[in-house]
């Protein structure tokens, strides 16, 4: 292998693009996915505010977004993306579709994490006369925090690999570099380096996530 063919400036830019895309997407995914997940948990049958119609609707939206292939989602969302941020190409243009793909995924994980919280906690709160908002904010979410962080880590890792497909809209990033130069142009060196960097990035993310989970589990 001839490592001198590598353009480190290009690779550096790809790292920046991947981190920017996945980072901003993860932020907005949590901002949107957490309330959505909580809403699904609360409206489910036998929970705090059962609303079977609303639950079915939320569940349908989540399943719809999770089942549309990402590249199709990229294209379907072009008008919305342009309306939101003014462009549908480049790193910025990749963030809304990434969020649209990841937020429902995170919401479903949030719903599952909340279901795992001991129902006794909720009952104790109700017995003490707590309001529903108080139960959610001061009992359910703090109790579920380690699980929510673990779910965010899983989502972050998924976003790193989703971001590889953002190359279709000129988002760039490591995955795009690996596909276009490593795979399509047989530049094995580029493939090796970009894939190694992606693995490293995912490892770092998982390590940081695990540390956070551990930290909040001790209490």
């Amino acid at each position: 292998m001839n490592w001198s063919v590598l353009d480190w400036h290009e690779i550096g830019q790809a790292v920046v693009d991947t981190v920017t895309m996945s980072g901003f997407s993860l932020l907005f995914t949590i901002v949107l996915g957490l309330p959505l997940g909580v809403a699904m948990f609360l409206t489910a049958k036998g929970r705090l505010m059962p609303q079977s119609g609303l639950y079915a609707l939320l569940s349908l939206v989540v399943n719809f977004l999770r089942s549309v292939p990402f590249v199709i989602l990229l294209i379907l969302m072009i008008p919305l993306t342009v309306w939101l941020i003014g462009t549908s190409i480049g790193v910025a243009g990749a963030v809304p579709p990434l969020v649209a793909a990841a937020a429902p995924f995170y919401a479903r994980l949030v719903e599952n994490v909340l279901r795992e919280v001991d129902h006794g906690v909720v009952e104790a709160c109700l017995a003490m006369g707590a309001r529903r908002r108080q139960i959610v904010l001061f009992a359910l979410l703090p109790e579920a925090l380690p699980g929510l962080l673990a779910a965010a880590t899983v989502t972050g890792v998924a976003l790193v690999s989703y971001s590889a497909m953002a190359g279709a809209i000129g988002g760039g990033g490591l995955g795009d570099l690996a596909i276009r130069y490593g795979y399509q142009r047989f530049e094995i060196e580029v493939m090796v380096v970009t894939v190694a960097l992606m693995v490293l990035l995912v490892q770092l993310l998982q390590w940081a996530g695990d540390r956070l989970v551990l930290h909040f589990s001790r209490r």
Partner: protein
Amino acid sequence: MLKKRHILLMALLGAASLGLRAETLTVAASAVPHAEILEFVKPVLAREGVDLQVKVFDDYVQPNVQVAEKRIDVNFFQHQPYLDKYNQSHGTNLVGVVPVHVEPFGIYSHKLKKLSQVQSGATIAIPNDPANVGRALLLLARSGLITLKNPSNIFSTTRDIASNPKNLNIRELDAALLPRVLDQVDLAVINTNYALEAKLLPTRDALVLENGTSAYANLLVARPDNKNSPAVKKLAAALNSPAVRHFIEQKYKGAVVPAF
């Protein structure tokens, strides 16, 4: 009465014997537009004593294999860069006889009317797969927007741009996405098939269109041993006739342009 019938029979027999003596020429071709163009010249060749047999392939390797192994006489589906690459990797020596048509790349814009209006720092979207990146960059170079380190390298990448005087921001996007983002970029270099599907008419809407001298002209391809045979020469002449030019221009309305 009897005499009349006799004459008719003689004529028929004569025609049949001519038909038997007509030379058969087999040609492997892609369905559109290649086979359609060949079907158009078939009657012309029949008058010249060549029975043209068109065999449609939807694959890009078999037509060359069949010709190289002498099972088919000639083929018509590829351009020179593809032929070069094929000969190089398969150890064959197939040769181009005449160029016939180009399915041209065009530079399109919703914001600009002329290429001279391109501002410094403008954004240009091009396809992102290797063959199309090279082709798009060549068109940009020929239009004077950039220069390439090696203008004859059809696999140039954005790394091979030698100068970019207007400091253009060249973005590589999925080819099918280009017409869909035309509103958001200053220029886009788009394959004709995708332009047509997005209701862009190459001859009307493109600021610049690849012309017949493009390296990507589709060729009639033969072997060294038959490229000068009378039948192949007749086919070549028919494919480059004014009638075919007219047929291409009328039928494909700029989506396919004559390359002769």
